[in-house]
């Protein structure tokens, strides 16, 4: 009997929970909307930027918009990066897609074409929300620092969405530790100063018996740093090896064919210097860093166990929010020319390689109120609101003339530098794989450049061949896909269809280049097979 009573209490409690939960849902779903009035329109905005500050920035923009548009409710849907592709396809196919979605992860040209609204007709008109600013009559395209390259689909030849941000990669410093170790706050500007700081840190850690590493590394963060450093040595070599080094930072096919011809190898002095530089740097990261993930390294840094971490501007607010110490950022220091005989090929400071904007937000065809979604998109892409975005998120702006927030000054793109050379993982996924498999032999204390080279040489050539094979297939596929599109555009242009001739001309240029690659890459690949 006692048992019965006890279980009854259990079920009663459960029933109570159920009623409360049901009431809560009912309140939110039906009652509140009914009270607030039916004319409320909800615009949903989905993105995967879960880094610190970004959700706040979206909220700030939404609130500001809702102030002036009381009948509109902006709802933000942040979706984790890992499940975003899955989420995207279920929403698109299921017809439940939000009004505005960030473009990139899980996106294909087909999905763009089928599920998103192109903005090509609008890029030459001004953004209404820029009225009254110095961008008043400027065409939409020219209000973004990248000329909306990031929104342009090379395959569909249409513009989709507006970018909100730009990105660069920097070195973050723990200022408390820096002060304690060096007695000052000056950041290293060259590689030599960087390594001096690293050595000082290790002495300090030993002296004070603390577990502190100079640099927090991971599978994700270390390559950001190492690629930069090794490309500081291979600039001149790249120039010699590949005639397209300047526009295309040597194309894979040219580098691979030069490798096949023996014009360069893992013994080439420049490559050896790059390896030496990576090994030199590797000793300053925590042991086994290549086994760690992105969040492990940031965790390490914000817990004060490393003086530095290399990461993108996208991590800046996360890091600042998590760290209970002041953080400074500076460019990744590379060796100055003639500074060290071990790496004699240094040219000097390198320019930031990426200038495309990011966080491109586009309107879906599933939107029930595309005109309001467009209005909000214009709003987000306008100069004053992009300033708000920058100030709250701590990320870089995408609109011309918007000042980076105080804390993100250090991330402003640096263009007055040289173009770096190539990395050993230049060929693609397989090159990257064998390179990463061997890298512990380069950077671990018991490793060496020779050890690494011997290990890498075992599979390097076949990995390049595999990458070439894959990109050959890709190039042929794109070329063939273009054929159908060219036929259609050619017919449309003949019938005088709007914009068809312009599109045809664009596609002719890209398909000619692609056709070229679709023969060149297989030719290089075949040279590896023989």
């Amino acid at each position: 009997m006692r048992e019965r009573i006890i279980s009854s209490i259990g079920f009663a409690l459960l029933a109570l929970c159920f009623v409360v939960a049901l009431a809560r849902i009912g309140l939110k779903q039906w009652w509140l909307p009914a009270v607030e009035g039916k004319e409320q329109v909800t615009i949903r905005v989905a993105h995967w930027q879960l880094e610190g500050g970004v959700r706040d920035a979206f909220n700030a923009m939404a609130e500001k918009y809702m102030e002036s548009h009381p009948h509109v409710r902006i709802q933000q849907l942040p979706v984790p990066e890992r499940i975003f592709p899955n989420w995207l396809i279920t929403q698109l196919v299921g017809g439940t897609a939000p009004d505005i979605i960030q473009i990139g992860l899980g996106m294909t040209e087909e999905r763009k074409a089928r599920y998103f609204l192109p903005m090509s007709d609008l890029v030459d008109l001004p953004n209404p929300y820029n009225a009254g600013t110095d961008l008043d009559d400027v065409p939409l395209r020219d209000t973004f620092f990248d000329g909306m390259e990031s929104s342009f689909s090379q395959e569909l030849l249409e513009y989709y969405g507006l970018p909100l941000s730009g990105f660069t990669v920097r070195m973050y410093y723990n200022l408390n530790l820096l002060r304690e170790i060096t007695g000052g706050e000056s950041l290293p500007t060259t590689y030599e100063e960087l390594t001096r700081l690293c050595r000082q840190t290790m002495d300090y850690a030993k002296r004070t018996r603390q577990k502190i590493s100079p640099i927090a590394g991971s599978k994700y963060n270390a390559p950001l740093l190492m690629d930069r450093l090794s490309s500081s040595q291979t600039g001149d070599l790249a120039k010699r090896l590949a005639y397209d080094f300047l526009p295309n930072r040597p194309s894979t096919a040219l580098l691979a064919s030069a490798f096949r011809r023996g014009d360069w190898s893992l013994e080439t002095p420049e490559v050896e210097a790059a390896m030496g530089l990576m090994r030199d740097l590797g000793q300053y990261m925590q042991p086994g860093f290549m086994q760690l993930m992105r969040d492990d390294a940031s965790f390490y840094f914000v817990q004060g166990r490393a003086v530095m971490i290399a990461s993108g501007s996208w991590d800046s607010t996360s890091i600042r929010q998590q760290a209970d110490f002041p953080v400074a950022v500076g460019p990744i220091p590379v060796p100055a020319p003639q500074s060290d005989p071990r790496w004699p090929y240094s040219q000097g400071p390198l320019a930031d390689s990426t200038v495309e904007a990011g966080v491109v937000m586009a309107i879906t065809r599933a939107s029930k109120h595309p005109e309001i979604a467009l209005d909000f998109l214009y709003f987000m892409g306008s100069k004053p609101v992009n300033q708000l975005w920058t100030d709250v998120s701590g990320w870089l702006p995408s609109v011309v003339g918007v000042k980076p927030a105080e804390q993100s000054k250090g991330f402003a793109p640096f263009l007055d530098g040289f173009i770096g050379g190539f990395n050993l993982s230049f060929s693609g996924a397989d090159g990257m794989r064998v390179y990463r498999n061997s890298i512990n032999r380069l950077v671990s204390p018991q490793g060496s450049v020779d050890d690494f080279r011997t290990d890498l040489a075992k599979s390097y050539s076949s990995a390049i061949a595999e990458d070439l094979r894959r990109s050959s297939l890709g190039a042929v596929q794109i070329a063939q896909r273009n054929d159908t599109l060219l036929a259609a555009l050619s017919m449309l242009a003949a019938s005088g269809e709007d914009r068809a001739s312009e599109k045809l001309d664009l596609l002719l240029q890209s398909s000619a280049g692609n056709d070229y690659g679709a023969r060149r890459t297989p030719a290089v690949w075949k040279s590896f097979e023989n």
Partner: protein
Amino acid sequence: MASTFQFNEARDAFVIATGDEAMRKFGEAATLLNVQPRTGGNIQRARRLFEEVARDTPPGSKLSRLSRFYIARVKEFYLAPQDIEGATADYLSLLQEKTADPLIEQGASRLVVIAAFSGGTPADRLQKLAALEKLDSLLETPAGRREFHTSMAYALLDNGGDKSRAVDHFLAADREGFTRKATAVSAWLVAATTAAEIGRNIDARYFFEKMLATYPQDPRNFTVRSLLGRLGPDNG
């Protein structure tokens, strides 16, 4: 998968264009080329359809010529093994008809690419390329000439040919005007560095400055400026 969209859009485009039977066949054939996964049967069907259209339409008509162009394309790119000789012959005969169609004139750059990566020694290939120089006189559209000269320039560079000739081809292509950023930047910068290398400073300067003026925000411009600064006096 990705082609499904184009399959649909292209089919729509053809339907919109006309209700004409030959056009419908042409559209079906063009889309069949990209139905995934690609099967030999589909390609054969596409080829048959193209052949029917080429036969059933007046010989000089756009549709007939485009069909022949696509038959050449099928031979070159879709058959296994490829029929390069057949494709070469088809492209050549189309070009000799002076079609003034920008798409059909792509045949010229196709011929260049085929020659540039054919078998034999680099010297053999350069010889084949030299034989193609005369195609220029057959091209009547800016796009046709532009793509032909661009391909020719790259083909010379890839085979260790005459760099000065390559720069000339870039200049010829540039005269027709690039409208796509990636293509333009690539051509200008390769042309400029090649010209600088062989001492054609005026041309190098021209390409560098065009780059700086057209895309002032580009991250490559620091290097461009420093290379520009290092150029010697203009000496032709």
